[in-house]
Structure formats: C-alpha cells, structure tokens
C-alpha cells in the first residue's frame, strides 16, 4: 500500500479535546515528587514493569522479521492517516450496510451526549463496560453518572480501579500500582456495597481474587442490557470492529447484551482485513509479552439471533484531527496502545501513571495528551522525560517519541505566557555567549575563578536553579584552565581562529 495525498484537506481549525479532566493534571514535577515518596507504589510499579519488560523482550526476539513487521505497522498507519477521511467513510458505509449505526463525535462532550441518548433510548439505568481508553479519555463514566446511569467496569483491573475509587495508572494494566494485598482489601471493603460481596475468607492468591471478581461480575453480565466498549481495530473494507483482551470478560459484554455501543478513536482504523496480520503480531508481543492474546472478538454490524441486536459505533475525534494536522505530531496517531513504552520508561517506572495526570501516562502519554488538549493545557508533560530513547526502541510502530517531545517542548517554550520567564532569559544569555567564540572563551575563563568558592574541589550547595542539582548531587569545581586555553598555550599555530 502506498501513502497518497489525502482526498480532502484537514480542517483549518480542527477541534481540540473537550472535557479534558482525564488528560491533564497538576504539573508533573510536583505530582512526581509525591509519587516518588510512596515506597509501596515504587515497589509495585518497579516489579511489574520489569516483569512485563523482560517477557516482551523474549517474545519479540523470537521473531526474525520483527524489524520488518515494525516498519510495516508504521507504514500501514501512515498510509491510513494520509487518507483517513476516505477510509472513515468506507467504514461508515460498511458498518451501516451490516446493520450498525455510525455516529460522528467531534469531541468528548458530543460523544458523551450520543452515548447517553442511546442509553436512554434503550431505557438503561446500568451499563456494562469493556476496558476502553477512549471512554476513559472522554470521562464517559462520569458523564453517565451525571445522567443517572451507572457504568460497571468488567475488566478485572478496571474493576479494581473502579471499586477503589481510583484512577487507571497504566494503559494496559490500569491497576498496576496495586499489589494483591491491596486488591484483596478493596474487594472485601467495596464489592458488597455495589453488588455481590467478596466471599468470606478471601485470600490474596491471584486465582482466588480472579474467582471473586468472576462471581461478582457474572450477575452483572446476565442482568444488563447495554454494553459499552472501545475498539483496538476497525477494518474499513469490511466494517469489522475488533477487541483483543486476556480475560473473556470483554467477550461477555460484546455478546450477551441486547445493545452494544462502541466508542472508537478515529485513528484505530486500518484499511484491510489483511493488515491485521501485521498488527496481531505486533500488539500482543509488545503489550502483554504474549505470542497471542487469549481472546480476540470481532463483529460486523449485527447478526439476527446472535449477539447484540443493536450496534452503534461512535467515531471520536477529540483532538485527533488536530494531531494529524501537526506534521511533527501526527506519528503519535500510529499508537496501538500496547504500553511497551511505559514498561521500559525509567521515569514511568519510578513515578507510576498518576503523576502524569492523564489516563495516557508514560512516554506516549507525554506526547499524546498535549497533542489532544493542545500544549497550552499540558505544559509540563513534554518535559517529563530524560530523552533516553528506550521508548522509541520498543515502539512496535516506530514512533520517535523523543523527537516528538523535543518538538512539543519547542511549542511550550513559544507560548505567550513563557515569553518572559527567568528560564528564557537565562537560555537567551547562554545562547548569546555560546554562539560567539570570543564571548565563550572569555566566559569560561572567568568561570575558572569560581573554583575558589568550591570546597574540596566540589560544590555541594548552589542557588536556584542549580539547587535542584546540588540537592542530591555534587558539582565539580571548574578547572584552573579550560581546554581551549591549554590548547592555545600549547600549540597556538594549530588553532583555526
């Protein structure tokens, strides 16, 4: 497949995300400071990320053509984005022909209104949910609650998060910040308040916890008429929508209720059925470190007498077209939400997901969240990275996250409110010095005098902004003579200027 020019121009002023409470939070450095102090969290996340990281590395190494698969995944996504409008209309046509109904939502508010209307039309007071990032992004559960409709999460980890009145902290493993002792406690405390209580004498063995969740959820599946899901992929040529999962709870939601509503970001589209060959190899190995995920559910419209008899597909923009319009940002739309980048990130590994303030945490969250909201509403996330590049290495669709972070930092620095910051003044002064050989030479010569203020050849305490460094690290005293002065004294004839 080849990337061709889009058949329609991108709107001049594409919509940004609305209802953005789950896409940004307080500044990352402050939130991270709190997270770093939570030793239980540090241990839980450190242990879990290392386990998944190692599993992924093993199953990726098994495939001799991983590099080619990765390039193919990136190319298919790029080609799809280049003609997204055409493929979306093809998808709508196919879904409609198969008996489904397609809704277009420019932003979170519109998507939530559509879903609420559909629930009301189905006279639903309760809905079951398949784990979905898109519905977390638009705060659908909160919007449903405001409309008097209770949404029940059925993914085990999402259930733990919901029962714990908590927020997801990982794209794939939303309760990664909890260990099994905490989960047992949440089940014991909360299950009985909203449905079937946890069995007495519940242990913290994973099998026992899973069984408690299974029994608690079974009653929900059998008594609820409406299900809401996200989607991993949708195939334009056939109108087929797909969810991959590990537990089978998703399949219960996708097959038992009478009405199924799927909220899908418009970038989840792939042109042809055959493209799945690539993505169904890339996704499970990158996300859970499995060769194949246990459950893959696919449906095309509705089938009489089998599964949901009403199917609604809500196509969500919520800032995606704006990301597509950004030449340096659009590669983020390749993301298949595998979370391999979270699992290898040295920052995420230590802070966990909540510090990012967005349900998209980690490296991909640090680019995706500001792309969806606009950088003005997410000024600290682009800086929440040491640019070490581990994320780019593992990304199954080759998103160059470090370069995108630098691009977003440039946008943040160019915001009107950043025009007069002390940081900008300092950087400007340094740039003035560093862009002139003579100013640079004089400046480092005078810096050498600073060594008289050092103790034992080092500084252990410096004023702001260097204080952030010297709080935990020494800084060596400047040398008596710079290299250039040594060189000039040694061999002045070799100097080019």
């Amino acid at each position, binding site marked *: 497949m080849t990337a061709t020019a889009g058949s329609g121009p991108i709107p001049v002023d594409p919509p940004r995300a609305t209802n953005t409470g789950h896409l940004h939070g307080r500044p*990352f*450095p402050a939130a*991270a*400071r709190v997270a*770093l102090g939570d030793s239980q969290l540090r241990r839980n996340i450190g242990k879990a990320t290392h386990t998944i990281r190692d599993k992924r590395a093993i199953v990726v190494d098994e495939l001799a053509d991983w590099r080619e698969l990765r390039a193919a995944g990136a190319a298919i996504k790029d080609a799809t984005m280049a003609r997204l409008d055409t493929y979306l209309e093809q998808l709508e046509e196919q879904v409609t022909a198969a008996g489904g109904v397609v809704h277009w939502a420019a932003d979170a508010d519109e998507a939530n209104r559509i879903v609420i209307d559909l629930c009301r039309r189905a006279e639903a007071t309760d809905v079951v949910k398949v784990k979905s990032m898109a519905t977390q992004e638009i705060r659908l559960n909160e919007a449903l609650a405001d409309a008097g409709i209770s949404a029940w999460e059925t993914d085990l980890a999402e259930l733990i998060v919901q029962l714990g009145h908590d927020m997801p902290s990982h794209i794939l493993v939303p309760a990664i910040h909890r260990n099994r002792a905490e989960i047992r406690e949440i089940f014991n405390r909360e299950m009985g308040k909203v449905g079937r209580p946890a069995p007495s004498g519940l242990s913290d063995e994973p099998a026992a916890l899973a069984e408690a969740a299974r029994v608690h959820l079974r009653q929900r599946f059998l008594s609820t008429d409406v299900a809401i899901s996200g989607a991993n992929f949708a195939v334009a040529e056939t109108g087929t929508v797909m969810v991959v999962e590990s537990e089978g709870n998703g399949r219960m939601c996708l097959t038992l209720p009478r009405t199924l509503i799927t909220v899908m970001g418009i970038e989840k589209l792939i042109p042809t059925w055959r493209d799945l060959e690539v993505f169904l190899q890339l996704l499970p190995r990158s996300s859970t470190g499995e060769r194949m995920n246990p459950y893959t559910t696919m449906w095309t419209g509705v089938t009489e007498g089998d599964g949901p008899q009403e199917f609604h597909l809500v196509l969500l923009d919520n800032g995606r077209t704006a990301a597509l319009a950004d030449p340096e940002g659009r590669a983020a739309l390749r993301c298949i939400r595998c979370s391999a980048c979270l699992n290898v990130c*040295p*920052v995420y590994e*230590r*802070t966990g997901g909540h510090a990012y303030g967005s349900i998209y945490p980690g490296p991909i969250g640090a680019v995706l969240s500001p792309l969806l909201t606009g950088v003005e509403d997410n000024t600290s996330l*682009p*800086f*929440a*990275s*040491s*640019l*070490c*590049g*581990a994320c780019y*290495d593992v990304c199954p669709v080759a998103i160059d996250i470090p*370069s995108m972070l*630098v691009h977003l*930092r*440039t946008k943040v*620095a*160019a915001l009107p409110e950043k025009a007069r910051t002390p*940081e900008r003044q300092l*950087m400007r002064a*340094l*740039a003035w010095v*560093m*862009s*002139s*050989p003579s100013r*640079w*030479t004089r400046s*480092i010569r005078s810096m050498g005098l600073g060594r008289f203020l050092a103790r*034992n*050849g*080092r500084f252990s305490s410096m004023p702001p*902004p*260097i204080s*952030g*460094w010297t*709080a*935990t*690290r*020494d*800084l*060596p005293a*400047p*040398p008596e*003579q710079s*290299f*250039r002065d*040594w*060189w*000039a004294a040694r061999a002045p004839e*070799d*100097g*080019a200027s």
Partner: protein
Amino acid sequence: MRVALFATCLVDAMAPPVAKATVTVLGRLGCTVEFPLSQTCCGQMHTNTGYADMAAPMVKNHLETFEPYEYVVTPSGSCAASIRHQHPWITRDYLDPELVDRVEALGNRTYELSEFIVNVLGVTDVGAVYPHRVTYHPACHGTRTLGLGELPLKLLHEVRGLELVELPEAAGCCGFGGTFAIKNADVSSAMLADKVHHILTTGAEACTAVDASCLLHIGGGLSRNRTGVDTIHLAEILASTETDPTVTAANGGQP
C-alpha cells in the same frame, strides 16, 4: 589523517582532561589533531529544552567551524547524535533550508570517539594500559541514537590490566537528560540513586562512559555519597599507558 576535535562545551569548560586524552589517543593512532578555536557548543541543551531557535546560531557556527575538515571527532555520543540528527532540522526550520545538505554531510563525517577508532581507523587495541576494576555505563544517546552498541566495549576489552565488570541494569538512563536533571530534579535523583546503587554492587573503582555529561551526573552522585568510586571517561582510559598513566581520585590522584 587530519582530524578536527570537537571538544564539546562541557569538556572544554569543565573536563579538559577528557579532550587532552582524546588528543593523546588520536595522536598515538597516527592522526594529526586540530582544535579549531572558533568552536563553541552544538546547541543541544537549548534544543532539548525547547529553544531550538536560540540553538540555530550555534549550529551555524558549528558548520562554519568544521566544514573544512574531512573528519570531526568528539568525545561525546550525545553531542555527535545532536549534530547528526538535530542539526539538519534546526537548519531547515530556523536557518536556511539550502544549508541542510551541507549540515547533513558534516553530520555524516562527525564521529563519536569509539566509533571513529573502531569503524574508521579499524583499531580495537589502542595500546592502553589501565590496571583497574572498571564498570561501563552505556550512555543513552550514544547507545540508542548513534547505535554504538558494543564499540566502546571492544576497546575496553583490549586495555591491558583492565578488569571490566558488568553493570546491572546497565541500559537504564542515569537521569541526567540535560535540563531534565534540574526541571525534574526529583525523578532524576531517583534514577541516579539506582544507577549509583548498581555501580556500587560491581565493586568497581570507577565507572566509565562515552559522555562527560552523564559522568558529571553519575560522578555527582558518587561524590555526594562519598562512595570512593570515581568516574573516568573512555578517552582517559584509552590514553593511559604504562609510562604515562591516567590518574584520577580513585587511583591515588587529587580530584
């Protein structure tokens, strides 16, 4: 072979022994090293903090300074990566798109030290002697952006007397990341704490790397905790010989 040394601003101002060692090693391998005095900084700190526009004059100065040379060698994986991968787009966006070809060409003949010695000179044994227990930290930009892989280790394996001990979790970032170390000082410190811990478990006398910036950071943590473990740049190990050994605090010298 005529080679221009790009010392980097950090080494020029804060770690002259690294540049001196680079001159020594390259000289021993038969290169004529020049240090064009009009060099300043590659602009990476500005670029990575969001001020690529301010880095642009530095990029221009870098091009004008080094364009006359067939080979440019720098004792920094990070700065080499910036010159190769960032200078072209900074030139396109903030200088003059017509210059991009020349900037790319310069990037392609700019080498990190170990890359130059192994891939261009075709040498792995530089005749160095350094009888100490050392661990190696694969600095991120050299390893990932430049793809140095095992090149620095190939050189270290040939150093007489050197006992190389493997660093646990070696690929983990030390937490430097330029202004990240200041803007996200707490996360950076947490990353450094783990790096320091892993270095201490090796029982090494010193930690080496291809970047003076990472070593400044790691060394800052080792020094603050009075671990007695030193940092030493790869160039300083390669420059060390029987008759002219490199002396650091860890092996009896003065800091």
